[in-house]
């Protein structure tokens, strides 16, 4: 699990039948200590309906399928939580 910022969204009509009703967001990994972006953006399925610029936690790899009640969903990255605040000692984001 890791934290990232939502930097974009996608529109996709043709998709696997089990993915109907969900959309894909573009995430940018963020260093929780410094708030700096890290690495290249990537895609994640969004079962929560998060907004742009929101700070989220996501799950990667096979465990991402467990974010759904029916585990038979072909995903490898899913947004699992919206981070409201992050305690970094003296300051809060």
């Amino acid at each position: 699990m890791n934290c990232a910022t939502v930097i974009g969204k996608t529109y996709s009509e043709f998709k696997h039948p089990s993915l109907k009703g969900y959309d894909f967001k573009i995430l940018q990994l963020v260093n929780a200590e410094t708030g700096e972006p890290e690495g290249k953006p990537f895609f994640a399925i969004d079962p929560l309906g998060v907004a742009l610029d929101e700070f989220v936690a996501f799950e990667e790899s096979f465990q991402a399928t467990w974010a759904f009640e029916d585990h038979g969903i072909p995903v490898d990255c899913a947004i699992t939580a919206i981070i409201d605040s992050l305690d970094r000692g003296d300051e809060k984001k």
Partner: protein
Amino acid sequence: MTLGIIIRELTCSVKDPKLNPSKLFLVRALDPDLSLRDEQFVALETGLGLGKGDIVLVVLGSGARKAEGNTDLPVDCAVTARVEDINIDNKYNLLK
């Protein structure tokens, strides 16, 4: 999940029987701004009716097995969606 573009359709006369109704595609990875990355994958496509030139999302790892339901498919890369539009910083990038 990774964005990619289908660059080749693979024809395999001999393959695992479990893969049989599905197609295999060669997919080149893309960045969200649609520039090409160096990686490429052979990805399974399960009856979505996609073809060469389509911009797709590719699932890597064991989650790709779920593309055919809960079967034990020998697959670690699957095409799961065709992307029609990407929106970064409120700039729309219509693909089709």
